C-alpha cells in the first residue's frame, strides 16, 4: 500500500510545541487548567476587584444558570491553580511554568479579533526572581523562536495582577528577518512582577517569594511569524490555510 502524504499540523500546535521545547530547556513545566473557569480563579484570585469593568457583561462569557462560572478570559487563572496544587503536594518554589491554551473574549470578530483564541502564560516564582530575569527569559525565547537577533524593550503598563507591569515590544534585527517586520518595534505581550496579593491568594508568603508572569497571544504571534492576514483562519478548519504549515 502507498504511504499517505504526511498531514499538516495546525500552526498554533506547532507554535505550542516549539514554545514548550524552548521553555522546557529553561526548566519550565507545561501546565494546564480548565477553560470553563470560576470567577474566583479568573478574576478575584488575580487581584481583579469585583467591580472592575472587565468583569462586566461585555467582555466575559458567563454560563447560564451557573453562578460564578465563566469562560476564562486569559490563561492567568492557571497561575494560582498551579501554585495551590504544588503547595498541596508539598512542593515549595522555585516554580517555572508555561500555560498554553484557549481563552475567550466576548467581542465582535474581525480580521484581528476572535472570540476564541490562544494564549501562552508564563510564571516564575522563587526567592530572588527579578524583573531582569523576565527580560532575559523573554529575550531568549524570542531569539530562539525567530532564529536570530531580536531586541526587546519594556514600556510601563497596568494589570491588576502584576506590579510593576510592563508591555513588551520586540524588534527583529537580523538581515534575514521578513522585510515587513525587520527593524520595527512590535507589541508582543503584557508582563510584570506578580502582585503580592496573587501570591497570597495562592498560599505563598510574599515576604519570602516573588516572581514574574507574562501572557502573550499565540494567534497574534502566528500572524506575525508567518505573515497571516486574517486571524479567523485559525478556527476555519480550512486546509487551504492549514496545509501551508
Amino acid at each position, binding site marked *: 500500500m502507498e504511504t*499517505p502524504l504526511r498531514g499538516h499540523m495546525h500552526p498554533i500546535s506547532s507554535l505550542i510545541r516549539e514554545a514548550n521545547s524552548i521553555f522546557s530547556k529553561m526548566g519550565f513545566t507545561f501546565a494546564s487548567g480548565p477553560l470553563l473557569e470560576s470567577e474566583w480563579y479568573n478574576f478575584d484570585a488575580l487581584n481583579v476587584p469585583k467591580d472592575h469593568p472587565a468583569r462586566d457583561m461585555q467582555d466575559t462569557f458567563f454560563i447560564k*444558570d451557573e453562578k460564578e462560572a465563566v469562560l476564562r478570559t486569559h490563561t492567568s487563572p492557571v497561575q494560582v491553580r498551579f501554585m495551590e496544587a504544588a503547595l498541596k503536594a508539598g512542593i515549595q518554589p522555585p516554580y517555572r511554568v508555561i500555560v498554553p491554551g484557549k481563552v475567550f473574549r*466576548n467581542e465582535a470578530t474581525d480580521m484581528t479579533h476572535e472570540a476564541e483564541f490562544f494564549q501562552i502564560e508564563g510564571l516564575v516564582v522563587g526567592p530572588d526572581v527579578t524583573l531582569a530575569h523576565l*527580560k532575559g527569559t523573554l529575550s531568549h525565547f524570542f531569539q530562539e523562536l525567530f532564529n536570530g537577533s531580536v531586541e526587546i524593550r519594556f514600556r510601563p503598563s497596568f494589570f491588576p495582577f502584576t506590579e510593576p507591569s510592563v508591555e513588551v515590544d520586540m524588534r527583529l534585527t537580523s538581515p534575514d528577518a521578513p522585510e515587513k517586520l525587520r527593524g520595527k518595534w512590535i507589541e508582543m505581550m503584557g508582563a510584570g512582577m506578580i502582585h503580592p496579593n496573587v501570591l497570597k491568594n495562592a498560599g505563598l508568603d510574599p515576604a519570602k517569594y516573588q516572581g514574574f508572569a507574562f501572557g502573550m497571544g499565540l494567534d497574534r504571534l502566528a500572524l506575525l511569524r508567518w505573515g497571516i492576514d486574517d486571524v479567523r483562519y485559525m478556527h476555519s478548519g480550512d486546509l487551504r490555510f492549514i496545509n501551508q504549515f
Partner: protein
Amino acid sequence: MLVSKHWLQKFFETPLPESEALGAAITFHAFEIDGINSKDGDDIFDIKITPNRGHDCLSHRGIAKEVSAILKIPLAHDPLSETPVLAPVTDKIKVTIEDADFCPRYIAGYIKGVSVGPSPEWLRRNLESLGQRSINNIVDATNFVMFNIGQPVHAFDAAKLAQKDGSYSIAVRAARAGEKMMALDNKEYAFTEAMSVIADAYADVAVGIAGIKGGMPAGVTESTKDIIIEVANFAGVPVRRTAAALKLRTDASARYEQVLAPTLASFGMHLVAELIQKIAGGEVVGFVDMYPAPQKEMQVSVSLEKINNVLGTSLTGAEASDVFMRLGFAYKEEGDVFDVIVPSERLDITIAEDLIEEVVRIIGYDKISETMLPPLDVVPAINASFNATEHAREDLMARGYSEVYTSVFAEAGERAVLNKVDSVLPFMRTTLVDGLTEALKKNMPNKDLLGLKEIKLFEIGYVWKDGKETLMLGTVSEKEAVKEYVLEVMAADSYEVLPLSTATNYKPFSKYPYMVRDIAMWVPASTDAQVVMEQIAKEVGELLQKISLFDRFEKGEKISLAYRLIFQSFDRTLTEVEVNEIMAKIAETLKAKGFEIR
C-alpha cells in the same frame, strides 16, 4: 485623554521638547500614546491613561506632573501644591448627604452677581483644542477646571432653586423609583432607587444626576445672575453603574468612575471660584464644605534592598531618592528604608511594589538588564496530557490526517453561554463530531486545489458533556465516519523531539472558485518534463494556481506527459470561455515546439 501641548506648557517656564521627543518621554515612562495631532498651531496628544492612574492623570496637571518628573524640569506652578482655605463659610446653603459612602465630600460655593457671557479667547481656545464646545464663561470655567486638575465641577442657577428664609438646601440622595429629570443634554432620564441625584431639597426636585450630568431645572443661562457651584466627591462604582444604565457617560462620570481623592475637591472649588470672578465678575458669598471623614494620609515604606531585589538592579539610595523627589513625594530615609508620604491624589500607591514601579518607570525600563534564570537542579515534570496530544498528533499526521481547530460553540449542548453577542451557537459543544463533519464538507470541493486524493482531518479539543470538561480526539475522512474518543493521558520521562512546521511564509489564497484542466502530449525522449511544465506555467501566467505532472510513460522513442492545471483568480470567478482560450493557446505553443497534443 486629549492633552494640549500649549496648555501643558503653561505649567512650565522652560520650553517643552519637540512633540515627538515629548511623546517618547511619556511612552517610555508613563503612558502609551495613541496619536499626536497638530491643530491650530498646537499639538494634541491622545494619551491612554491606565486604569490605576485615572485618579490623577485624567488632567493636564497630572500629565504636567509626570512630564516634570520624567524630564526633570520643575513645575513653574502646581495648582495642587497648597491646600486652599475656603472662606468665608456661608449659612445661605444647607447641604445634606444621605450616604457618605457614596458622597464622601460635597462643597457648595455661592457666588452672586456674575455676568454670563462669552469666554475670553484663551479659555475658548483651550477648550476647543480638546474638541470641547465653548458654551459661556461660567460653564467653560467649570470645564476648564476639570480638564486642568481632573476634578469635575458643576454650576447651578441659584434663582431656579427654592429658597426658604433666604437660604437654599441641597440634598445628595437616592433617586425615587420613577423619578425623572430633564438633563442639560435636553433628554429626559428616568431613575431607579439604585441611582443618586442632587436635589433641591426645599422643592424636592432633582436638579442633577450625581457625578454625571446637571439638570435643566437649575441650568445656567444667559440671564443667570447668582450661581451655586458644586465640587464634590462621589464613589466610583455607583457612578459607573448609573452612567452605564442611563447610557450617559460624561467627562465627569469618566473621572468619578476612576475614583478621585476627596482632597481634590477643595482645590477645584478654589480654582473655579477664582476663575469665575476673573472672567465673569461676581462676589463670593461663601462656601459650605461637607466632609465628615477627611481622607487619611497614606504612608508607604520600601527599602533600597527590596527595590534592587525586585528589579535585579544595583541602584544607589541617591538614585531612588532622586525619583521620589522628582515625583514630589515627601519621604524620610532611615537606614536603607524610605518612608514615603504619598501625595493625596495618588490613590494608586498603597504598597512597596507601587513605589518600586515608580522608581523603575522614572529611571527607565531600559536600565533593566537581561539576566538569564539560573539553571534548576530539578528536571521539569512532563505533562502527561500534553504528551498524549503530541503522540496522537504525530501518529495521525503520519497517516495523512491534518489538524483542524473548530469552534467550541455549538447549536446544542448541556451548558449555555449566557451572553453571546451574536446569539448564534449559544451552547458549549458536547462533541467534536459536528465541527469535524462541517470541516470535511467545507474542504471537499478543494481537493484538486489542495492536491489531495482524500480529505482526512483530526481535532484535539475540549467538549462539555455529563457535567465535565473533557479533552477529546476526533477524526474524519471521506471514507470513514467521524470517530471520537477521550484522549487518555500518557506519562513519560521526557518529551520526544518532534518536527515543527517548516513553513516560512503564509501565502494568501483566493476565495473564488477554481477550474481544473488536463493536457497530455507526446514529446521526444530527450524532453525535460520540468522544462515543459515551466513553459506551460509561463504561458498561463498569474491565473495558474497549481500545475503538476500526473502521468508519464514511454513508448518507443516518445514519452507521454500529462499535466493537471488549476486555474484561479484572486479577484473574480473565471469563465469557461477564458480558461478554454488559455488552453487553446497552450496547445498551440506546444504544437509549435513539435509536440503532439493527445
